[in-house]
């Protein structure tokens, strides 16, 4: 399960609207509770480096991630997931999303942005123990 405040949830969705018709992307920081739920305590917007195909691809510059990870560490936060948007495509993971997902045990949040308006937002946990058996599993998103 992913727990997120209304403010952070709205921020994730607004980011997708602002970059439409391009994909947005960002990082979820927070902690994991004793039951395994990931709790978002901050979000960080990232640039999409896939300028060759930003309408259907995203990539976060690792250098930006290193900086955000360091800033999170200073606040006592870990990276617990990521988000991106699917402009005019369903809020479901794609084969590309799975192939390029490597943070096992983290949440991957996807928002469908339809005609510039954030529509459905879903989250998927990347499960498995290694590249060979990784899989996305639907996870509940608790906004509150």
């Amino acid at each position, binding site marked *: 399960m992913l727990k997120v405040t209304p403010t952070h949830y709205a921020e994730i969705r607004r980011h997708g609207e602002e970059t439409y018709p391009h994909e947005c992307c960002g990082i979820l920081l927070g902690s994991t509770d004793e039951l395994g739920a990931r709790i978002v305590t901050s979000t960080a917007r990232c640039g999409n480096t896939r300028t060759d195909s930003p309408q259907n*691809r995203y990539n976060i510059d690792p*250098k930006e*991630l290193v900086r955000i990870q360091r800033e999170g*560490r200073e606040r006592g936060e870990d990276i617990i997931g990521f988000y*991106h948007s699917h402009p005019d495509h369903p809020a479901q993971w*794609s084969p590309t999303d799975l192939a*390029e997902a490597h943070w096992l045990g983290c949440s991957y949040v996807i928002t469908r942005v339809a005609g510039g308006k954030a529509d459905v937002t879903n989250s998927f946990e990347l499960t498995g123990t*290694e590249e060979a058996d990784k899989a996305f599993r639907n996870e509940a998103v608790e906004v509150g």
Partner: protein
Amino acid sequence: MAKIHIPTPLRQYTGKLAAVDVKAGSVADALAGLVAQHPDLRRHLYTEDGKLRAFVNVYLNDEDVRYLQKEATAVKDGDTISIVPSIAGGC
């Protein structure tokens, strides 16, 4: 000593440690020292033929070692190494 920051998914192989200190003269030494302390990390960082996996980025302080001297990049006391799996995808 240099400090290696471990990304969240790999901490299950370091006894939940978020960072591991290693004594090393190069990035290759540092990663070898890390894997020696935590052998279960090896298959997550390296392919079967011993190359770093393509999606594993290694940063020395704020620089990608691919643009320095790769794994031969010199490391000195107080340096920070970050292991950063890539983040990408698309619809």
